[in-house]
């Protein structure tokens, strides 16, 4: 026979467990609301200055190809900023409703760091990778598209590496390697096989 006091203690403990669980969920939501970045998507800031040609390598899921288009725009003088601006413009295309290679709703690139003229680190936002569709071909098209568009702006570029929210990540969405350096020449050769 369980005494009434013991029953009350067990009931209090169970209630406390549920209350603590609820409080934890509340704290988690609160923390998420503080740390979440503003959902701006890949908006391209207007720049002033003379227009230059920018080549974008656009992926097309329908025929697994990369197609080049030229865009006229004023470009920043700093190479890193110039690369970031080109990738902003590229990703903005993918976020359009009729995109042939849709990305997650707020996909973007945080920064492009140049370690030297031949080595760049692209820091993608979490939405780019987390919401990316999973599959060898779709992931490869995204990576190749970013690398080759960056190369078109930075002619001396020889290798590229990716971070996601400043951290190394093993794969983009379960398939394509995101932890290693990409040889830009090898990417160009492999991309040529796609066409």
């Amino acid at each position, binding site marked *: 026979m369980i*005494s009434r*006091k*013991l029953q009350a*203690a*067990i009931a209090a*403990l169970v209630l406390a467990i549920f209350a603590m669980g609820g409080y934890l969920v509340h704290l988690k939501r609160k923390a998420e609301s503080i740390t979440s970045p503003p959902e701006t998507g890949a908006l391209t800031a207007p720049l002033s200055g003379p227009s230059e040609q920018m080549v974008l390598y656009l992926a097309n*899921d329908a025929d*697994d190809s990369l197609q080049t288009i030229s865009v006229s725009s004023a470009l920043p003088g700093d190479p890193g900023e110039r690369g970031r601006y080109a990738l902003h413009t590229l990703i903005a295309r993918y976020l359009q409703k009729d995109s042939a290679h849709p990305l997650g709703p707020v996909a973007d690139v945080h920064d492009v760091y140049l370690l030297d003229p031949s080595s760049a680190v692209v820091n993608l936002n979490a939405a780019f990778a987390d919401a990316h*569709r*999973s*599959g*060898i*071909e*779709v992931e*490869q098209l995204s*990576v190749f598209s970013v690398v080759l568009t960056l190369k078109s702006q930075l002619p001396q570029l020889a290798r590229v590496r990716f971070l996601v929210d400043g951290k190394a990540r*093993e*794969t983009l*969405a*379960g*398939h*394509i*390697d995101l932890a*290693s350096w*990409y*040889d830009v020449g*090898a*990417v160009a*050769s*492999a991309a040529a*096989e*796609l066409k």
Partner: protein
Amino acid sequence: MPKVHAIAVRLLLLMLLVLSSGYAAEPRRISVYAPQAVYQVDILFRDGVDYVGLTDLLEPLGRLESRLDGKKLGLTFNGAEAQFQDGKRQVHVRGNKFDLPSNFLIVDGRGYIPSASIAQFLPRLTDQSVNFHAAARRLFVGSSELHYSAELRHSPSRLVISFTAPVNPSTVIEKNRVRLLFRREALVSSGNDNVSYSDPFVQSSAFTESAAGAEVTVNLLQPATVAVADGGRTLTISAVVPQPQTPTAPKPPASAAATDSAQPQSHPARQHPFVILDAAHGGSESGAMLTPSLAEKTVNLAFARRLQRELDARGVPVVLTRIADNLLTWDQRAVSANTSHASIYIALHASASGHGVRLYTSMLPSAQPAQAAHAFMPWELAQSASLPQSRSTAVALAGGLTGTGLPVRNSAAPLRPLNSVTIAAVAIELAPSGDNVDELASPEYQQKVAAALASTLATLQQKEAAQ
């Protein structure tokens, strides 16, 4: 009051212990041994009953089609029909009624039967004899069982274990004990599991079995060695002979005439797999969700099993990196390939995007001959020495697939774990032929691709054997 507190604290600790043990528990599985495949199926515990998935159980055994209509599930296995209804015990197999010991279940569109009913249900559907060792969770289908007998021989003392078919157990030699672990062989008890011997070398032997496999343990009084003979049908456990301390004269070379033909061969030729198939993803990592209810990991494993059957049918030795829904890291997959002694590694993927079959090889540059001759290669460059073989294999496979009428493409990709595989390595991504993504799970579609791949791999194996 302090007594109440103590009880409450103990109760809380007990709850935590139960919760933590639940999370840490390994999934329980049944090992299935059939003439055409050896595999494992996960056990689903529902309402106090152990269940097994019908697709997991039947797919490796033959041609399976399933039709889900609301709460009703219809199966066609090698032409035999069976009907089930969610929440009902009664099932119809080949037109006859049959009662399961517990209700049939449909979970996430997949049918489950109580594991206790396997021995009664499977023979009715497959028309094959079935022997289920429930306690060990080992299921033997058809004439898959492998028997053994142990005989103690003297002068010198040795235990000779004979098997009804060739075996290749993992052998663990300890100080006074030898353990023979049979993971893939359908070894069953000889009828006398524990035997004691009155011998200065062999003390006793014992047979045990579990879902992980069977084990024969031999307890000894001296350090021992194990030799294989008769093409793997005989294992001989004998005492280690001490080497002479001061050899006075060089030994003559062993000649065939001097060899005792009754003595076991110490280094028998073993048959290594030609192909290692790696069904990508698994466990908590589903890969792509091809449809809201179809995960890539499921298609990959089903396709791997189908390809394995096609290769078996053509006599091509093949192994799988995973035979159940479990997660392997990229490095574990590469290590499996590199230690398998296989000639070709094939990673299997599926995608809802695009059409047909895509073949991928590593994007690394090929190693120069001087580099390739290096004893050590960095882990992330290990594939570079085998890249020419990988590319020629991919070209051959692509050529074999053209007969299917499907779009086929062959290219390089920065795909894990290809760069770390030391043998010829190709990844295959299966996409639907048209817009119907469900086609990826259809037996007809998978069969068409698997047959084409298996034919090419059989040709490659013949070429390798000829060389």
